[in-house]
């Protein structure tokens, strides 16, 4: 039996040891971190699937745990992403200014993750959330910019505060901090209030429209090994709160009869759709590979929200499967980009080109990850998108349909951009000496490649586990056998698709191999319409890849940035007013205001 409490204490202890070890030797400390995370992952995987974790609490005061399929599903995915990323630490940490604390904070945030998904108490949940935010907040600025951390922290805190107010309302109504009893006791107007507050928290954490502005800033500037954690793991906290709000609270608002859906859920679905469209358009436009993937996370967050707002088993299965598929795909893609960034020192696509010739395995990892991200079979992303499409079509949600189809096709565009500009194209002269990533970094790469394919070919087992979560949430699960998935309007056999794809490729390979062998020529030896081009950079098409398309929405693309800049400006002005009123040089004015405010606050209580 593995005890949740002991695992958390173990992580805290391991964090301290990692701190000391890293201080003496970065490599050693990072290896220790890998083993610590691996231990937690193995304990979770060994006991958690059968719901055999020990949830008794003996040492930690005021904390209580319980075991749910929902919490475990999130926990295992996130711990897995942490494990994969920890393999990158030995090669990146030495560059960072505060490398000693990196492993400590990393392990502490993992402790927060475990606590947050296993607790049954709202105050504990809030505490563990804050633990995650505060630890990760110090990890992000070790990358490129300190402002990224401010932006991340600001939005996370806004979300947390919204959640805290929701928790207090729940406590006021139900008289308990227990998550499940508390949410069950809500009704009427209170339920709507708490629903809205929790949705705000979910949007802030998930980085969904209109609270998405921090996502590209934080992802793009975070340390390279931390971006996969942010995108693959931490934004999923938002999905967790979203599930609590959309399914557990589900306030009794009016019903859209055409779609048989409550208005609250429909509004969230529409906002999720806007997230999809907005994220896709911005990702197409983006030049920094990491920011591009950050916008893609925003768009995938939209899919998750859409899935959970359609209240039936198929949609939930799609949403939960999408969380897994996107975590694997985005971790894979971000880690491939991180490997490139380590070798070249940049993530700007216009500065890169032809990396495939030096880093073929990293290229394959990226390729498989984006195939999954774009929802193309035979990868995991296809299964989840297929399930979500089923639900959307079945409900006849036309406008949400436009968004999910647009996002799905649009994702081909943006994921192809790094492929073409960064990995393919001309081999630029300045990167001729680059080497493939070291073996230790290739281990997680291979594991992620394998899992991306596995989730796309044999989803049966995972979907059966997801059925447990759906039943736990009070809905009926989907019909799934070893190879087949039964949707509302069709059957899918992913293994068959995988097999047929292999057959097709086999035939194509046969045709290719029996024909005459080709002569190898240099990349520069291309058709140039009789111009003599001597420089690789001139033959590399990477800048403004989708220029004609970008021009169509160029003017609209910075609306949200402008809005937040204006908002920041107004807040600053308000601060100036406050400073002018209360903080004047004349000391007596300040004292007067302090006294006045104290009297105002105490009015009716003491006075």
């Amino acid at each position, binding site marked *: 039996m593995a005890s949740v409490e002991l695992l958390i204490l173990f992580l805290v202890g391991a964090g301290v040891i990692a701190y000391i070890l890293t201080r003496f030797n970065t490599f050693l400390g990072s290896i220790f971190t890998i083993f610590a995370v691996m231990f937690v992952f193995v304990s979770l995987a060994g006991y958690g699937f059968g719901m055999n974790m020990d949830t008794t609490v003996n040492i930690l005061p005021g904390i209580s745990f319980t075991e749910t399929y929902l919490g475990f599903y999130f926990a295992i995915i996130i711990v897995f992403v942490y494990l994969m990323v920890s393999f990158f630490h030995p090669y990146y940490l030495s560059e960072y200014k505060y490398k000693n604390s990196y492993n400590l904070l990393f392990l502490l945030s993992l402790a927060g993750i475990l606590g947050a998904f296993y607790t049954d108490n709202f105050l504990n949940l809030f505490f563990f959330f804050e633990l995650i935010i505060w630890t990760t907040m110090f990890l992000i600025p070790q990358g490129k910019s300190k402002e990224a951390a401010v932006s991340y922290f600001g939005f996370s805190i806004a979300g947390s505060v919204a959640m805290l107010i929701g928790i207090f309302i729940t406590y006021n109504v139900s008289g308990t901090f227990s998550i499940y009893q508390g949410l069950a006791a809500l009704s009427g107007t209170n339920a709507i209030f708490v629903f809205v507050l929790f949705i705000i928290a979910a949007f802030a954490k998930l980085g969904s429209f209109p609270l998405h502005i921090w996502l590209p800033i934080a992802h793009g500037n975070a340390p390279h090994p931390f971006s996969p954690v942010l995108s693959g793991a931490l934004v999923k906290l938002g999905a967790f709160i979203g599930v609590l709000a959309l399914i557990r609270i589900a306030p009794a608002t009016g019903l859209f009869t*055409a779609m048989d859906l409550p208005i609250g859920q429909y509004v969230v679905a529409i906002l999720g759709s806007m997230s999809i469209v907005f994220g896709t358009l911005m990702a197409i436009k983006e030049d920094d590979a990491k920011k591009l993937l950050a916008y893609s996370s925003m768009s995938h967050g939209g899919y998750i929200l859409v899935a959970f707002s359609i209240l039936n088993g198929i949609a939930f299965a799609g949403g939960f499967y999408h969380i897994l598929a996107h975590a694997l795909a985005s971790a894979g893609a971000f880690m491939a980009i991180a490997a490139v960034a380590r070798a070249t020192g940049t993530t700007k696509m216009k500065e890169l080109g*032809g990396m495939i010739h030096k880093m073929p395995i990293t290229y394959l990892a990226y390729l498989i990850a984006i195939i999954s991200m*774009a929802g*193309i*079979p035979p990868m995991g992303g296809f299964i989840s998108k297929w399930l979500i499409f*089923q639900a959307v*079509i079945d409900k*006849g949600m*036309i*406008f949400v*349909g*436009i968004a999910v*189809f*647009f996002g799905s*096709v649009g994702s*081909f*565009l943006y994921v*192809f951009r790094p*492929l*073409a500009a960064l990995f393919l*194209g*001309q*081999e630029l002269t300045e990167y001729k000496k680059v080497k493939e990533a070291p073996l230790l970094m290739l281990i997680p790469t291979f594991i992620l490649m394998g899992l991306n394919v596995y989730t796309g070919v044999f989803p049966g087992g995972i979907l059966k586990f997801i059925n447990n979560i759906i039943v736990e949430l009070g809905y009926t699960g989907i019909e799934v056998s070893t190879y087949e998935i039964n*949707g509302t*309007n*069709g*059957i899918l*056999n992913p293994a*068959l*698709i995988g097999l*047929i*794809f292999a*057959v*097709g*490729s*086999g*035939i*194509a*390979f046969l*045709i*290719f191999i029996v*024909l*005459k062998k*080709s*002569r*190898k*020529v240099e*990349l520069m030896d*291309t*058709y*140039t319409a009789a111009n003599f081009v001597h420089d690789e950079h001139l*033959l*590399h*098409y990477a800048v403004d*890849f*989708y220029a*004609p*398309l970008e*021009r*169509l929405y160029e003017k609209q693309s910075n609306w949200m940035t402008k809005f937040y800049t204006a908002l920041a400006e107004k807040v600053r002005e308000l601060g100036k007013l406050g400073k002018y009123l209360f903080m004047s040089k004349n000391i007596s004015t300040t004292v007067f205001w302090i006294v006045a405010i104290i009297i105002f606050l105490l009015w009716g209580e003491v006075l």
Partner: protein
Amino acid sequence: MILNILIGIGIAFFGFVLQTSIAGINRKIVGRLQKRHGPRWYQEFIDIFKLLSKRSITHGWIFDFGVIMALGGIIATAMFMPLTNNFLAFENFDNFFIFVYLIAVGMLGMAMSASGSGNPWASIGVMRALTTMLAYEVPFLIVVLTIINLTGNSSLTEIMLYQQASGNNWFLIALPIGGLVGFIALMGMLGKKPFETYVAPAEIASGPMVEYGGKQLGMLFIMNEISAFIEVSLFVHLFLGGATNIFEFLIKYFVVYTLANLISSVNGRFKIDQVVKFFYKWPLIMAVTQAVIAIYFGWVI
């Protein structure tokens, strides 16, 4: 299972022969339209076999790997395609989304290979192809959403049977606006003018194809023919009631492809941003209108 796979391979091969022949006949028809004789109907076969027999160049492993992935993906997609309502390789598994998304593997392979050649024309062509795809796919999928919502099934065979059942019309008649959108989207999928922007031989030197020759080009030709077969068959099954026997299928197929080709031969070419603007204006509005009146009001002829 082995038998089913063999039937699937047979369907893919049949699709290749059918589309290549019909494309050859269409070259003759377009020739007559332009007051010339046009090539023989089997000219396309000659072209492909000549290319396959030639020795060619390669730009590295991704250049070849992409071509194999492209042809493999398209053959795999074609293997799922039903020809008539009882002739298909894998019963119950002819799900509509397989065709839309498995075909994308082939497209991705081709795009990858083209970009891997290191020629900027190729990358520009790929960029245009993907942008065109973003344009036509959304209106088309909205119409299909309507169809699947009405029939309650996304299996192509079931959609065919629904249209053939007494009392129901072909979806081209039942959903006239949607049918029109479907046809315009088909023109985009086939890369017919005015949506031919991504090939544009006179402008970007055939775009993605610029660097190819020999067997790679021959394989991409085969891929192109099979994907045209998939796209036209999709239209036949979704909007024209499918087919009860193979001759019906052949007639419908021929009519649809020839019509698309005739329209193509009297049109100019859009610029790429015009393609996007066009599709997100009328076809999308029409598709949404059709979806709203069919799903929410239930007005289906």
